[in-house]
């Protein structure tokens, strides 16, 4: 074995660049986020914003704030828009995640059972992974266009203004729920690729001998699936479920893409489907709004995700086998 400390210098050189970047662009922001959430009325000049007559403290690296406190959190939690965003995000999560995971698993199991064309199907299912969120979101919007979309042309009598009646025709029949359908269709479409690939490689990594042993043990087909395949796959299922929840909570680009207006809804209702992440970015990017609020909101988001993840881990303890 190589002596322990001998590589100290070399390691330092090798790691220095990475550590530097991580410090500046990862750790520093994280720490700041935690701190700013508690600095009230924290704002930094930037372009075009005047400091005004804020009579307060200066933050070390720039920006002023009034005092330390939880005002930011109060602002967020009393903001109706935030709760709208939270509600929207929750609905997106609840609707799309189970659908995507189950569908993904079903497709993976199906793919695993066929020999012919398996490669072709696999390639097709993987396509969404390498596509641009904005570009394809717009395509989905087009597919569901009230007048010219594929969906309405096929189901002629339905004629919903799924998502963009307003933009083009001026009449607003777009409701939250019709938009949700489009968004779900897109989210599921986008999410399947990754899940299928992970499940498929999980399935293929199960040692064939287990199936042989089960055959000798006279196990019927459904029992082989429930008692052997699924338990051996359970770590993947857990991983996919957790990451899917986390990903769905961060929904943002897909909403923007599907509406195509740069906001979270048709022209008449720009905040129809605002999500939590959207809320955070709005608070931040629009000049002059305190960083504090955005940080507070992002901390709240982090907190929610953390709780849900821990819950999932807790529930899974009994059911996941490594």
């Amino acid at each position, binding site marked *: 074995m190589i*002596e322990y400390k001998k*590589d100290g210098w*070399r*390691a330092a*050189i*090798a790691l220095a660049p*990475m550590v530097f970047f*991580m410090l500046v*662009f*990862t750790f*520093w*922001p*994280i*720490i700041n*986020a935690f701190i700013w959430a508690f600095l009230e009325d924290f704002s*930094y000049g*930037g372009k075009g914003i005047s400091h005004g007559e804020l009579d307060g403290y200066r933050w070390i690296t*720039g*920006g002023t704030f009034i005092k330390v406190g939880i005002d930011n959190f109060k602002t967020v939690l009393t903001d109706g828009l935030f709760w709208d965003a939270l509600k929207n995000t929750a609905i997106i999560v609840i609707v799309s995640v189970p659908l995507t995971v189950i569908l993904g698993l079903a*497709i993976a199991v199906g*793919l695993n059972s*066929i020999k012919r064309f398996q490669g072709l199907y696999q390639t*097709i299912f*993987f*396509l969404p*992974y*390498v596509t*641009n*969120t*904005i*570009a*394809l979101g*717009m*395509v989905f919007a*087009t597919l569901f266009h009230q007048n010219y979309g594929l969906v309405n042309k096929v189901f002629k009598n339905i004629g919903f203004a799924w998502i963009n009646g307003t933009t*083009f*025709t001026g009449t607003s029949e777009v409701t939250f729920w019709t938009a949700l359908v489009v968004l779900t269709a897109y989210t599921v*479409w986008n999410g*399947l690729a990754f899940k299928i*690939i*992970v499940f498929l*490689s999980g399935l293929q990594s199960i040692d064939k001998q287990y199936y*042989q042993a089960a*055959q000798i043990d006279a196990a019927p087909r459904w029992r082989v699936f429930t008692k052997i395949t699924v338990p051996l796959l359970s770590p993947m299922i857990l*991983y*996919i479920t957790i990451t899917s929840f*986390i990903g769905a909570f961060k929904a*943002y*680009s897909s909403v*923007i*893409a599907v509406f*195509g207006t*740069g906001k979270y809804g048709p022209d008449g209702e720009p905040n129809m489907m605002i999500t939590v992440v959207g809320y*955070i970015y709005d608070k*931040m*990017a629009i000049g002059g709004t305190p960083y504090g609020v*955005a940080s507070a909101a*992002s901390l709240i988001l*982090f907190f929610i*995700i953390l709780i849900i993840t821990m819950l999932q881990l807790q529930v899974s303890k009994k059911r996941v086998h490594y």
Partner: protein
Amino acid sequence: MNKEMYLNPKELKSFRIKQIIGRTFLYLFLTIMALYIFIPFYWMIISSLKESWEITSPELTLLPVNRAGRVLWPWDWQWSNYKNLIYGIKKVEGSIGTEWQFRPMHFHLMFRNTVFVGLLTTSGTIILTILAAFAFSRLNFKGKDVIFSIFLMTMMIPGEIYVVGNYYTFSLLGWVRSANIWKIFGTLTLPFVGSVFYTFFLRQTFRQIPNELYLAAKVDGTSDFKYLWKIMIPIASATITTIIILSMIGVWNAFVWPSLVTNANFCEPGNYHLLVSNGLLEGLKTAMGSTEENSILNLQMAGSAMVTVPLLIVFFLCKKYIMRGVSRSGIKG
């Protein structure tokens, strides 16, 4: 190991029938799902090659047709849509409003910017990642495990938190929404150069290189970094290629950060800042805003296609690397 090995002819027949029915349903299911995945692509490309009237007609046409309803040959398809997309449609003489019916979208500039940022980011990432992965996999130093665990933990924190912080940092520097394109490029590149994910991934690969090679090289008097350069990198070249490809794709598809830090006002050929995603969005927004026709869906689809097709080409060329990389990273989760 097939059950059917053991069936007598009578049982075999009913088994086969059941098998065929089962298979049919399976293929049906998979095909429906595959169509679900495939149709958006198809629709995007086909629509981009249709004429406006065809888009707005109530008929559903799977392939571009002429006014009489006959399917057109590929060379009769509306390739001009792409031309219009890029160069814009000037308004007819004498009509009211601004000069453009459809403002040109500067795809070449979008591509240029994105590729450039991609190259910058990827080069930086590769250098940092190789060094760090090497350190974590082969070198021994105090606190190695602790530091690595800390790195891992950052993977679990949602990116939104860094966004706020990084936005602040670059505001301090005055680079956010700056007029200077180099500052913008810096803003777009620097936060993503240090990636724990790729480090983790590469470290996996490095670790699979047997330690004996390292010891043998040491005995031969090779310095650590020479070993890295001459042996580890070539052996791990597949993974490194995957990282390069994934990183470039990541930049191509990035939306959130670019939309926050670039200034949409800079979209004239002289000073164009946007990347692919927001270029598309902004371009279409302004383009659509200035047109009275509501039938530029074909142009819209052409825009999406312009952005998607290069990526698809890359995908088909590098399919193996991409898919293998994604599935490997998934297993380790």
